[in-house]
C-alpha cells in the first residue's frame, strides 16, 4: 500500500508526482514529500511499531518508499542514553544523548538518510549512486552503495585529508577528487547531477534523502516512552536535520501516536560557520551565505539549502539558535567523553557546547527534559584533539617506574 501522495513545493505549494526531481519548475522552491496521514493513521500504531525490528524502518509508512526497505536494513534505532553524569556536571534535571556515534554501518546519522535515499534510488531504477562530500556522507554512500550493489561516484575537493579519503575509498567507489575550491565542486556536481541519470543523493534524490532524518525524531519519542521531550538540541549544517526532527514530532501528533508536542527545538552551529544562527540572532529571515572557517567540518555549509526552513522550525517551536567557538567545541567533546563515555565528532561538540551556552543564557530551562542529538563518531575527527588531551604517563618496564608515575597521578588527583 502506498502512503506517499506526491511532492509539493515548499514555496508555492505546486504539486508534483513522485519522481527524482527536487526543485519546483515555476518558483525554484525546494520540493518536499507529502503523505496520506489518514491512511497511515489506520495502520501505524505504537503497538505495530513496537513489534518490528529495531531499525529505522520500523516507521516505514512515514518514509517515502513504495515497497519494502532495500538498503540500510540494520541502520537506525541507536541508543538514547540517559546522561546522568553530564546532567549532574551541568546541574540539570533530565538529560539524554541520542547517540548516533554508533550508527550502522558508518558511525554517523548519514547512515539514516542514505538508507532511505538508496532504497528510493532502487525503486526509481537507478544503478549509480553519487554524492559530493568531505566526510560522513561520502562514507555512508560508499558503504551502503557497496552493500546494495550500486555503481558509486563520490566527489571530493582535491585538498581533502588522507584519513577522510581512506574511510570512503576502502569501499571501492569511484572517488573523484576535484581540483578547485568548494564553490567549484558545488557547481560541477550540480551540473553533473542535471546531466547524468544518476541518483545524486543530496541533489535529485534530496526530497527523499532528507526524510530519513525524521527517524531520529521518531526514535527519541519512542525511546522516551512515547513522549516528546521539552527540548531538543540539533546541530545545523544545511538545516535539513533540524527541520525533519521537528516534522517527525508533528507527524507523530498528526497520526495520533502522541497527544501533544510542546517541544522547543534549538539549533547549534559553529561560530566559524553560523549563517542560520546569525540570522536568528539578528531577527531576520535572510540567511546570508558565509565562507566556513571552523574545525566542525561536517557542519561547514556556508550556503545552507534548508537554512530558512530550519529558522522557521526553531521559531515555530519557541526554541532558539546559538553558535560556539572552536575552543568551546573541543572542551565539549572532552566533557561528553569524560562524563558519559561517548566520543563525539566535532559536530557533537558543537551540540553539547551550544547546550551549555543556552543553559547559561537561560534559554533552556535546567528543569527541562532535554535531548542532545550527537550525530557522528569522534574517531572521524580525532585529529582536532591533538595536544589538547590529558597527558600520557610514560614509564620504564619496572615497578619503581610505575610507582613513581602512580605518585604523580595521586598528587594530581589530590590537587
Amino acid at each position, binding site marked *: 500500500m502506498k502512503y506517499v501522495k506526491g511532492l509539493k513545493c515548499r514555496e508555492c505549494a505546486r504539486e508534483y508526482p513522485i519522481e527524482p526531481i527536487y526543485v519546483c519548475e515555476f*518558483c*525554484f522552491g525546494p520540493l518536499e514529500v507529502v503523505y496520506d496521514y489518514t491512511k497511515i493513521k489506520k495502520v501505524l500504531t505504537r503497538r505495530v511499531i513496537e513489534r518490528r525490528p529495531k531499525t529505522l524502518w520500523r516507521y516505514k509508512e512515514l518514509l517515502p518508499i513504495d515497497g519494502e526497505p532495500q538498503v540500510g536494513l540494520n541502520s537506525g534505532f541507536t541508543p538514547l542514553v540517559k546522561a546522568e553524569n553530564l546532567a549532574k556536571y551541568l546541574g540539570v534535571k533530565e538529560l539524554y544523548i541520542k547517540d548516533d556515534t554508533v550508527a550502522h554501518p558508518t558511525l554517523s546519522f548519514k547512515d539514516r538518510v542514505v538508507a532511505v535515499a538508496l532504497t528510493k534510488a532502487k525503486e526509481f531504477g537507478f544503478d549509480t549512486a553519487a554524492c559530493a562530500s568531505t566526510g560522513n556522507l561520502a562514507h555512508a554512500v560508499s558503504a551502503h552503495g557497496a552493500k546494495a550493489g550500486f555503481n558509486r561516484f563520490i566527489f571530493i575537493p582535491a585538498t581533502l585529508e588522507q584519513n577522510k579519503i581512506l574511510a570512503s575509498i576502502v569501499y571501492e567507489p569511484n572517488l573523484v577528487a576535484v581540483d578547485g575550491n568548494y564553490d567549484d*565542486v558545488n557547481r560541477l556536481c550540480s551540473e553533473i547531477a542535471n546531466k547524468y541519470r544518476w541518483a545524486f543523493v543530496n541533489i535529485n534524490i534530496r526530497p527523499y534523502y532528507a526524510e530519513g532524518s525524521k527517524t531520529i525524531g521518531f526514535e527519541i519519542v519512542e525511546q522516551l516512552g512515547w513522549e516528546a521531550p521539552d527540548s531538543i538540541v540539533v546541530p545545523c549544517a*544545511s538545516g535539513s536535520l533540524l527541520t525533519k526532527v521537528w516534522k517527525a514530532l508533528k507527524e507523530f501528533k498528526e497520526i495520533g501516536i502522541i497527544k501533544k508536542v510542546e517541544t522547543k527545538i534549538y539549533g547549534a552551529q559553529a561560530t566559524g560557520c553560523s549563517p542560520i544562527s546569525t540570522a536568528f540572532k539578528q531577527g531576520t529571515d*535572510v540567511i546570508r*551565505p558565509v565562507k566556513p572557517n571552523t574545525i566542525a567540518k561536517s557542519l561547514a555549509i556556508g550556503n545552507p539549502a534548508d537554512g530558512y526552513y530550519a529558522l522557521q522550525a526553531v521559531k515555530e517551536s519557541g526554541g532558539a539558535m546559538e553558535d560556539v567557538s572552536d575552543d568551546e567545541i573541543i572542551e565539549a567533546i572532552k566533557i561528553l567523553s569524560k562524563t558519559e563515555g561517548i566520543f563525539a565528532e566535532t559536530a557533537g561538540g558543537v551540540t553539547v557546547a551550544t547546550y551549555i551556552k543556552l543553559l547559561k543564557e537561560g534559554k533552556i530551562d535546567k528543569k527541562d527534559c532535554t535531548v542532545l542529538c550527537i550525530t557522528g563518531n569522534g574517531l572521524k575527527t580525532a585529529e582536532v584533539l591533538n595536544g589538547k588531551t590529558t597527558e600520557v604517563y610514560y614509564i620504564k618496564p619496572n615497578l619503581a617506574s610505575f610507582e613513581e608515575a602512580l605518585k604523580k597521578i595521586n598528587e594530581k588527583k589530590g590537587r
Partner: protein
Amino acid sequence: MSEVKKLRVRLTFPQELIKEPVLFRMAKKYDVMPNIRRARVTDTFGEMILELEGLEENLEQGINSLREQGVVVELIEGDVIE
C-alpha cells in the same frame, strides 16, 4: 566556441545596491538573459531567485561582475558538498 547554458541562482544584494539596476546592467553588458522566479526586496536587503541563460563564458563573466560589485551569487541547491 562556448555553449549556451542555464544556471539557477540566488542573488543576495547588500543594502547599498538595492536602488541600483545591477542585474539589468549585467544582462546587457554580457548578453545574459535573466528569468526571475521569486524576489524579496526590503529597505535593508534584496534577494532574488532566478535563472540566467547565456554562453558559458558570458555567464561566468556576468556572475563575476555581480560578485565584484558585492552581490552574493549562490546556486539554488545550496552547498551540495556535505
